[in-house]
């Protein structure tokens, strides 16, 4: 019953044991939080740790997170690795293909802020939150697989407090610098 206990105080057991009462929100958030299939958007070094986290030693699958390289069937996008200005429209396009509700984990310093490439390069986006709504940030260059597990658990906590009635809006502003021809919105059609 450990998983049922996650529903917390919103759960009420009826006498007899086979019927439980709970709120729709709690049930929905519980089920969403425990099967977060992920889109591994691995571009660089962090992708190695992303792979390692799903394999034998760390086994992220036990948290209900299963990597699926198919944006239509996933809930959370793990952006792992440097996102260059050329890659950013492709990442955004995959994000737009994902069905709502959707969440985003920024894994590694490059996705948080640009990392060691932040200051003096012309080619790297200063963090994916400049064009994606990020839910959980993981620092590290690269972060250990345990950090990704922690991020999944934190995301689960975050999902637990969401409400269907309130609704999450994803009207994120497109902050890609349109002055650069590489990431102009018109270009998004041809990439990816």
């Amino acid at each position, binding site marked *: 019953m450990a998983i049922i206990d996650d529903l917390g105080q919103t759960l009420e057991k009826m006498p007899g044991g086979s019927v439980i009462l709970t709120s729709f929100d709690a049930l929905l958030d519980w089920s969403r939080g425990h099967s977060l299939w992920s889109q591994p958007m691995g*571009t660089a*070094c962090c*992708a*190695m740790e992303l*792979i390692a986290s799903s394999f034998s*030693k760390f086994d992220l699958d036990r948290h209900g997170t299963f990597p699926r390289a198919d944006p239509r069937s996933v809930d959370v996008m793990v952006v792992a690795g440097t996102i*260059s200005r050329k890659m950013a429209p492709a990442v955004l396009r*995959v994000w737009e293909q994902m069905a709502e509700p959707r969440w985003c984990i920024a894994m590694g310093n490059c996705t948080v802020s640009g990392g060691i*490439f932040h200051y003096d*390069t012309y080619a790297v986006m200063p963090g994916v939150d400049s064009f994606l709504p990020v839910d959980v940030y993981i620092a590290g260059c690269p972060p250990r697989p345990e950090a990704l597990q922690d991020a999944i658990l934190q995301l689960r906590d975050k999902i637990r407090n969401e409400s269907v009635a309130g609704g999450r809006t994803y009207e994120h502003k497109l902050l890609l610098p349109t002055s650069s021809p590489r990431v102009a919105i018109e270009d998004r059609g041809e990439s990816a």
Partner: protein
Amino acid sequence: MTNDAQGTAAEIVSDGPSVREMVVNVGPSHPSTHGVCRIITHLDGEVVTEADLVIGYLHRGIEKIAENRTYLQVVPLTDRLDYVGSMYNNWAYSRAVEKLMGITVPERAEYLRVITCELQRVASHMMAVGSAGNDAGATSFFVLAFWIREQVVDLLARLSGSRLTYNYVRPGGVSFDIPEDGWVEDLRALCKKTPAALEELDRLFFGNVIAKDRTKGIGVLSAEDAIAAGVTGPSLRASGVDFDLRRDEPYSVYDRFSFDVVVGESGDSFERSRCRLLECYESLRIIEQALDQMEPGRTTAPSIPRLIAPPAGEVYERIESARGTLGVYLVSDGSVRPWRMKVRSPAFTNLSVVGTLAVGHTISDLVIIVGSFDPVFGEVDR
């Protein structure tokens, strides 16, 4: 798929050249491109008639950033080039700086570099072989190969403090000596038990009739073409060219070890992956010999200043990385920052033949061909 490629059903099933060409875009976010490579494939049915590789999706301008950093600050940047085999980048860059400065590296540091880089070769090859198997559908094989990689990475993390970006080999030596927590014994134990695990991998995939059918005869690269395109490393040796910098141009202390250079024959995807697997045995042999020969001593050259300002000049140093000949070209103008750094990337050069090799194969074979060259896009795009 472009709009004009949607022919009628009759057109598509009709045999003969009337079937219209279809353009399928693979990548840049695709699980089988081993990174962020985009391949624009022109298909006749399922058969690739043309494959254009579009690279640059991971271009970070590392060579340009290096011009703004001091010589020691460049070392962490080189970690992020070939992130599956970071040690090699550290080493190639450090050798270039040492040559520029005229530094002699202590012997113990050279042995430690050999040991860590051969460990790195095992880790890198396990990633390459495993993901090449994964492309052919052998996911359990990938998991087993990754388990060997995890054990190696653990040892490297205990030595350098990091699992992936080590920053361990530095100009003048290495950053840490061996820890006193039984690291050497654990490494020896690993060298003893890993060959059995490698044999299991060999039997599981390369002895499997399905895997053989899937990879043999796919993407055959002849020795002449390989040399003409500048392909190096296991991809070149799989085509039957006996060339290994560790033996033919021995740098560091490689002339003190006895090891065999694994040379293949057919030059197809099967051979390229298998050569990588067999090289791991030789790496383990080298590590055992190095552990036997190593003696206590310094791990960094004495009197390396914090701010290196080499005399003006230019150097080119090359080493044998897991992917092939990794070269670093450095130009110094006498200041504390490199005037120019250029990396001769084996992954980039090896990838250049993929487009022509894929022609005539089906699109599912294209994935296997790309995987068999083991591209790492941090190094391709730099």
